């Protein structure tokens, strides 16, 4: 059973809906009993880094998630804030992240070259460039694009973890991958046919 972690943030219904449409059942939950039984985990999220980490901590989910992901190697997909929480820390907040990726989360503001500033948050469709092959991104329709909405982006210290990159005035990481752990900055559940394929690939791992 695919479990979508409900920690109070994010559009969980859309993810469940899209999974259902491609033929996969899923459960939205924050209960340790259910998360423990998950064959795959999706960590969604919209909002600020500290709010996200606090909520995960308050729900007592962090130790369980560490066990499932690091020990049991359960495939996990982080979406948007969910992906950022998988990093070590964020310029947006004070708290430590889950630290599954050797990466930091940085702000767009102040990083644009002079004369090349773009509006923040980055809201819209961007193309993705494939940095390494992986089952998650297999069979994507031609010229894949996804919907992004974020003011902060992931920056990895390990080049081999970079799965996809996109360009918003400059090139930045739009997806990370390491073993069973995936983090995508964009929203597959809002990227119609491209999202369908990506979620299908994840569900079939």
């Amino acid at each position, binding site marked *: 059973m695919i479990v979508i972690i409900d920690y109070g943030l994010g559009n969980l219904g859309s993810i469940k*809906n899209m999974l259902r449409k491609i033929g996969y059942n899923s459960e939205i939950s924050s209960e340790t009993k259910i998360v423990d039984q998950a064959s795959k985990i999706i960590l969604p999220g*919209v909002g600020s880094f500290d709010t996200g980490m606090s909520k995960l901590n308050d729900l007592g989910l962090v130790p369980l998630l560490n066990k499932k992901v690091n020990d049991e190697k359960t495939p996990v997909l982080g979406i948007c804030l969910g992906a950022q929480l998988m990093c070590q820390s964020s310029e947006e907040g004070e708290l430590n992240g889950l630290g599954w990726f050797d990466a930091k989360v940085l702000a767009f503001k102040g990083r644009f070259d002079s004369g090349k500033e773009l509006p*923040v948050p980055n809201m819209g469709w961007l193309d993705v460039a494939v940095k390494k092959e992986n089952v998650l991104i297999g069979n994507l329709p031609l010229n894949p694009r996804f919907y992004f909405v974020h003011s902060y982006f992931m920056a990895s210290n390990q080049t081999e973890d970079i799965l996809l990159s996109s360009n918003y005035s400059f090139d930045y990481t739009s997806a990370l991958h390491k073993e069973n752990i995936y983090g995508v900055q964009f929203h597959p559940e809002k990227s119609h046919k491209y999202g369908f394929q990506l979620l299908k690939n994840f569900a079939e791992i």
Partner: protein
Amino acid sequence: MRHRIIPILLLKNNGLYKGIHFKDHKYVGDPINAVKIFNDKEVDELVFLDINASCEQKEPNYNILRDIASECFMPLAYGGGVSSLEMIKEILRVGIEKVVLNTHAVRNPLFVQEAVKYFGSSTIVVSIDVKKSFWGNNYNVYINSGKEKTNLQAVEWAIELEKMGVGEIIVNSIDKDGTLSGYDINLIRRIVDVVKIPVIAAGGGSSLTDFVKICKHHKASASAAGAYFVFQGKHNAVLITYPTQVEIEKEFDSFVELIN
């Protein structure tokens, strides 16, 4: 980067409508089927605005919003009489990504700040309905579906909204609404020049060229339209259309930068 092209659909008593200058609304049909068609056409994003809600101070029809959201696999924004954090929470819970504030943002700016704090910038969009003053010097902000004039100027209000942390601004020209005569470029430029957050141009958008130009040349982040996507031909026959990805790519690629 491809700028978004966004249909704005108007809801009234659970039906879709489209008007001119915010009046004489024509019935367009069932919103659920319309969303399904737009979804199949791979539209970039959709905005639904309830045009009665502000006046009637009703709660949104969450059931129909849930049905609409369940047919949508791209971003969806909803607005219309949104006046409390509880309402925003419910709207997000039924599967909608963003909430559009308008009248209540003006009536109670503190509400905007609270909403941004609680739900995050990227969830809160504010829509500004604008009418040119009689002598054409000022752009005045109107609320309550364009019925009530405020003493706010569009430019000043946009700057305030950015300060409050709003994620996006929709700038809608009442003068151009439904006329399919092109955007009020002057208005859009004035706003784009003073804020660094995304600005969505609305009101009068009449062609793919309009959509591309207002973004690439006049620096709006996205273009929006209503009449263009629901009316066809000289008799304004109701028919849902949206350019194909190929047509959009071609128009963006072939755009030649004009000298200012």
